[in-house]
């Protein structure tokens, strides 16, 4: 963290209508670093990603507080033109659903070349040869012949490779990958993650990997931030977090991993459910489900401690 961060999210708060969905979310990503953002469905991971890109549909989504600094620029103060210049050029994004994230009426060559044409001012021909190189880079064989194929002619894994090629077309400094492997089957997942990992080194970009799969994070990330119900509850270097989780939620989450349990035994689960954004109480939001809650937990929100191991818990492990 000695370097100036590439991305600094500071006390970001987001509301959907009047309901707060993100509260006081802060994290930093250094150039070339990979941060994993983990949490259950609905905890605000994707909202965070969309907020960084300023893609949150408004209404109902609204950023009500905090700052997002990308490479020193305040993303929240940019006008729409300046934002578009950054999107797809300096920040690339991969979505969860490769099946529907490609436009069915254009060839993949057209879609990859699109951002080259409008960010780099390339003409059709140079964009095409650059696109072929990109397809090579993401491991689609015989790239030149594939340029004229339509999305429906490709498999899920290939489509996700195309999405990656689109995101990387302009060599962004930050790649936001929102559950890039969720819709793919396991063997393809590993290939796609390997690909992202390899390209990260080759292109020297930072990655914000959003996932609910702890195994993916363990393998792939330098640091991990765990989110629960719209807040970051723990953040630490990956190795440390897995070896010695301190927040009770992280701990419980790690216990539920199949790899952490002997075969043949029923997998443990965390009892209860995540409270709806409107029903978050005064204290620690995890307290009602926490086996180690002390009286203070129900009444008072624990503050987030300082790096390197940040934590939001009154009674840590």
């Amino acid at each position, binding site marked *: 963290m000695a370097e100036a961060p590439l991305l600094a999210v500071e006390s970001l708060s987001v509301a959907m209508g009047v309901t707060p969905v993100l509260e006081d979310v802060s994290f930093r990503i250094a150039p070339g670093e990979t941060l994993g953002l983990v949490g259950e469905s609905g905890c605000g991971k994707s909202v965070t990603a969309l907020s960084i890109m300023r893609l949150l549909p408004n*209404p109902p989504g609204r950023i009500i507080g905090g700052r997002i600094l990308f490479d020193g620029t305040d993303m929240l103060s940019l006008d729409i033109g300046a934002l*578009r210049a*950054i999107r797809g050029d300096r920040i*690339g994004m991969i979505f969860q659903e490769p099946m*529907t994230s490609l436009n069915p009426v254009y060839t993949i060559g057209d879609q990859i070349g699109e951002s080259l044409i*409008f960010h780099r001012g390339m003409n059709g021909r140079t964009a095409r040869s650059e696109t072929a190189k990109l397809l090579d880079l993401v491991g689609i064989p015989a790239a030149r012949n594939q340029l004229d194929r339509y999305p429906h002619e490709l498999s899920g894994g290939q489509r996700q490779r195309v999405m990656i090629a*689109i*995101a990387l077309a302009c060599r962004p400094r930050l790649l936001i990958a929102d559950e890039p492997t969720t819709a793919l089957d396991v063997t393809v997942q590993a290939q796609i993650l390997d690909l992202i990992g390899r390209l990260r080194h080759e292109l020297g970009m930072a990655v914000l990997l959003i996932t609910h799969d702890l195994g993916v994070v363990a393998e792939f990330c330098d640091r991990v931030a765990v989110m629960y119900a719209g807040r970051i509850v723990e953040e630490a270097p990956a190795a440390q977090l897995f070896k010695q989780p301190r927040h009770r939620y992280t701990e419980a989450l790690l216990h539920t991993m199949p790899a952490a349990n002997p075969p043949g035994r029923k997998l443990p689960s965390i009892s209860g459910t995540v409270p709806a954004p409107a029903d978050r109480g005064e204290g620690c939001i995890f307290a009602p489900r926490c086996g180690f809650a002390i009286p203070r937990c129900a009444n008072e929100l624990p503050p987030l401690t300082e790096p390197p191991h940040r934590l939001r818990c009154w009674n840590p492990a």
Partner: protein
Amino acid sequence: MTTAAPAAATTILPPRRLIARTLGAPGAVAGSIILAVLVFGAIFAPLLSPFDPNATRVCPRLAAPSFTHFFGCDLFGRDIFSRILYGARLSLAVGLLTVAISLVAGTIFGMVIAFLGGRVDRIGVRLLDVMLGFPAIVLAILIVAVLGVGAFNAALAVGISGIPRIARVIRSATLTLVGREFVESARAVGASQTRILRRHLLPNLLPIVIVLGSLDLGGAILSTATLSFLGLGAQPPTSEWGAMLSAGREFMRYAPWTMIFPGLALFLAVMSVNLVGDRLSHVLDPRASGHG
């Protein structure tokens, strides 16, 4: 979850296969042949018509059909066959112009209000509701009353009165598209609003636009003929089917050919266009043709 039904008709067919598939039903084949004959007659009217359509007294008044005058003659001794051929020119051209007006304006309107959403959409939908509250033909008559009579104004009037129906369908089709991920990923690579509309939404809507256009063409031909029949469209001596029907009305009992042939021409034109349009919509609809 991953297999959401296709929201809009997005079947991609190369033109050659599209034509082949369209001609895969007997009705469409019949329609296409009739339409082809009409179009051929319209294009080559000057060569095919045996007489000048506006020349009077080329034959006895209200003469019955014969080998020199295939469809007989009207009150002024004009050759009805020649007038029908020239009428095909006008009817088809006016029909196409009408549909073009409704489609272009309706598509843009429907797409933009759905895409912008919020207040723009609410106001836009209200506006469409108000326009749809009038029967289209009454709205068209109102517009002609403002613009003045004439074939071009009739086309404009019917075209404008057709906008709300198109806009409404396009709006709902667009609504299902704007929520799709590829629109979001287009935003994520920095595409502008106009670029998303033009490059990402419009091409996905084209199959629907084509179907709407082909289904509307028959109605458009009929509506402009109706205006002419009422004396609000093409003015004499222009040969127009609706106007010819109107002129023949008085002699229906003595010289039925003055009405039968323009009516038949109108019927065949509308029917052939509808047959082709129906088939086209079937082919382009992924659910109906079993292609998702």
